[in-house]
């Protein structure tokens, strides 16, 4: 809702405010657009010099063929990297959703003895520096890895997924708690009176009622896994789009910049799709998910 619905004043101030908002947002718009544009150009379009834009599809062709340089280099399997990124993202999404829906429900609906302590713990997680954690997380990985000798790659995927998902626990818990808070108590009461266990009530009654919340958390979890760079570069036995871009930009001496821009655009695709299709969802989330 906005004031516009009941506005009684002139439109002029509104236009000025709108202009200010556009101006403030312009770096974001310009920045991202230039990268997308450059992926279709022979050389990077980074300034407003129209002559630097030479339209071509060769960056995309090269990228999908797996070349990281016009001449030389080894062919890399971009589709595999995309798949790897998707696997991590999906895994994180599922784990985060599971944890969020379960913990969020408990905090929202159950007055258990350690509730406050649990919430305090989750709040405090926010103060843990990721870069400190990661040394310890490596240590644990090292301790656990002998189990996985046969399939190091699979184990590394598994580990990255649960490690990255745990970074999203605070967000997940708060989000789902917000959605659960909105459900009237009566619905649950009725089911519990009938003798169902909490688990059944959760599964059969509550979850269907928080579908928007679940959709939101699945999406946020997916995006969190999709965007990850640090955990993937530290633990994953294979490359994802993130590490592909990082390594190819490492020495700019040999970086085929427009090709990297194409990889970046490819990598950005799910985010863009999400944005275009989920305006409604975001609205619901921002209204519901943030009630304390």
């Amino acid at each position: 809702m906005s004031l516009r619905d009941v506005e009684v004043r002139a439109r002029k101030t509104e236009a000025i405010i709108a202009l200010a908002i556009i101006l403030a947002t312009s770096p974001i718009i310009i920045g991202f657009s230039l990268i997308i544009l450059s992926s279709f150009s022979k050389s990077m379009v980074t300034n407003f010099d129209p002559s630097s834009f030479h339209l071509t599809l060769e960056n995309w062709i090269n990228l999908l063929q797996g070349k990281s340089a016009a001449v030389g280099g080894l062919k890399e399997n971009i589709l595999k990297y995309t798949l790897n990124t998707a696997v991590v993202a999906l895994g994180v999404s599922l784990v985060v959703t599971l944890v969020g829906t379960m913990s969020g429900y408990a905090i929202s609906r159950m007055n258990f003895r350690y509730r406050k302590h649990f919430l305090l713990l989750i709040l405090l997680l926010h103060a843990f520096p990721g870069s400190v954690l990661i040394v310890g997380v490596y240590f644990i990985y090292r301790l656990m890895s002998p189990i996985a000798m046969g399939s190091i790659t699979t184990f590394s995927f598994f580990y990255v997924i649960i490690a990255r998902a745990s970074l999203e626990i605070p967000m997940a818990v708060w989000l789902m708690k917000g959605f659960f808070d909105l459900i009237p108590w009566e619905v649950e009461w009725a089911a519990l009176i009938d003798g169902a266990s909490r688990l059944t009530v959760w599964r059969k009654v509550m979850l269907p009622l928080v579908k928007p919340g679940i959709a939101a958390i699945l999406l946020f979890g997916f995006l969190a896994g999709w965007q990850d760079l640090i955990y993937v570069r530290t633990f994953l036995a294979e490359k994802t789009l993130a590490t592909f871009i990082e390594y190819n930009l490492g020495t700019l001496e040999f970086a085929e910049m427009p090709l990297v821009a194409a990889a970046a655009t490819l990598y950005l695709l799910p985010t863009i799709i999400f944005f275009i299709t989920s305006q409604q969802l975001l609205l619901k989330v921002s209204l519901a998910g943030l009630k304390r």
Partner: protein
Amino acid sequence: MERLKAISKYVVIGIVAMLIIIAAVAIFLMQAPPAGPTKVELTGNFEKDVVEVGKALEANGISEVTYSVWAAGDPNSVMRVLGIVEATNRINKIWSDNNINVKIRIDTRFEREFMPLFEEYLSKQPTGQASDFLANSYIYISTLAEEGYILDITDYVSKYSELVNDFYPTIFESVKWKDRIYALPQDTEARPLYFRKDVAACAGLDLTSLADKVKNGEFTWSGIYNWAKQAKEAGCADWGVIHRKGSAHPDLIQFIYAFGGKLYNPDTGKLVIDKEAIYKWLYVEWKMARDGLIPENMMEWDWGKQIHPTVTGGKTLVFIGGTWHWTEYQTRSYYTDPTTGEPRALTAEEVKEFFYYTLFPAGESGKDPVTLSQPFVWTINSRAGEKNPNYDTLKELYHELAFLILVKASDPDINAIHSIISAHLPVRKAAAQLIADENWVNKLKNLEVDLSDEVKDQIRDIVAATVNPINTEFLANVSYMLDYTHIAPIHPLYPKLADIFKDAVDMVLRNQKDPAAAVQYIIDTVNADPDLAAEVEIIGEIPSEWSYP
């Protein structure tokens, strides 16, 4: 309904139990005691050794062995990885010719930057995620050896003395640490000073026999200053000297040697800060930047968008480059065509027409010209072969096979092909002979050489772009530089010191510190870290009466 539930419950339990039993049996079987020999005595006869190893593997029930190789470098240096692939293809052929039913498979990975790859190797080796072979700079051998991450192959190498004798002696020193051998050389290079012939001609500078004048110490960095100034004042070039960005190692370290300085004390094994030589080096950079001959923000220039276009576009008189740039400029589009305005690669003829090359001149008269080599070497993971069956019992076999792969990857033709297509220098004399052999080079151009198809496909486009007489002539012409070459110290903390040098260079270029203050900054920063300070000796004094040019 209840009955059905109960039955299905037991069925599930039964299936789970069976699965557990099957898994246990499988694990048990995997640890089966060796059926064949677990080790082969190497004799130095390659075919015999590799056949014995193959037979031993076969006797132990192994039919496929998988190794992985990581390497980094410019896009033309793919042979750092494909050399291993080719080696295994040759071994597979020997085995099939001898009716041995074993095959080697290689997983490859090729990145651009070698330092991040090394850092990744460090964190992944203990978790078993690192590659079995690593082609990287020799400077990391000390760290890798100290931590036990790479194999000590001294005993294996001792059987292959013929191979060892064919490597250039200075190059072979780079694979040793504390008198043990940890790698085989893969390639090396030199760092010539490139002069733009057209800029020199425009400014009236005579390049005839300059290379000799540099060689005998007649033409020094004072000469460079004067020439650069002349070129700039005559409007023939925007800059006098362009050099690398982002780090002082390895190109800029040449200044220290060119001024007769030391970086390493072999008696104490410590790094050395030679105040006088470093002062003079920083002074040269500082003075040239103040007079507009070197860009103040040189250390931040973009390779692809600024450094190489400036060099190929003739906007500088001198470029402190490497031998590999000769072919790099033929495969990358740094040059803007003056007629069409489109970016493109140079032709070999153009590269020859544009560039004159010499050693890195002496800093001042009385000193010697230098060049710097940074050999790349192949190391073997101390856990090589771990992903293969029965590693615990057959460890020795897998390690021996890995070593034999390295021996094969050092074949003269593999080394020669790598040198030509990437403009590095060969590490063994037999390879140098091939490069000088015109017939062989012509066959290479048409890919009529003895390479497996897989490798041929991967290098087809590079070969087409780089193999020609002009390039091989260049390689032959620069090999004399190996007689004047230095190698940066093999010390675990050397990279840290080089990093500090880089900051000092950046500061003097931007006039944030004058040379004397910058030298003091280096010393202060070193002393701020007690561990580093303990490994560094400081010698010499900043000269009070020294002028440049």
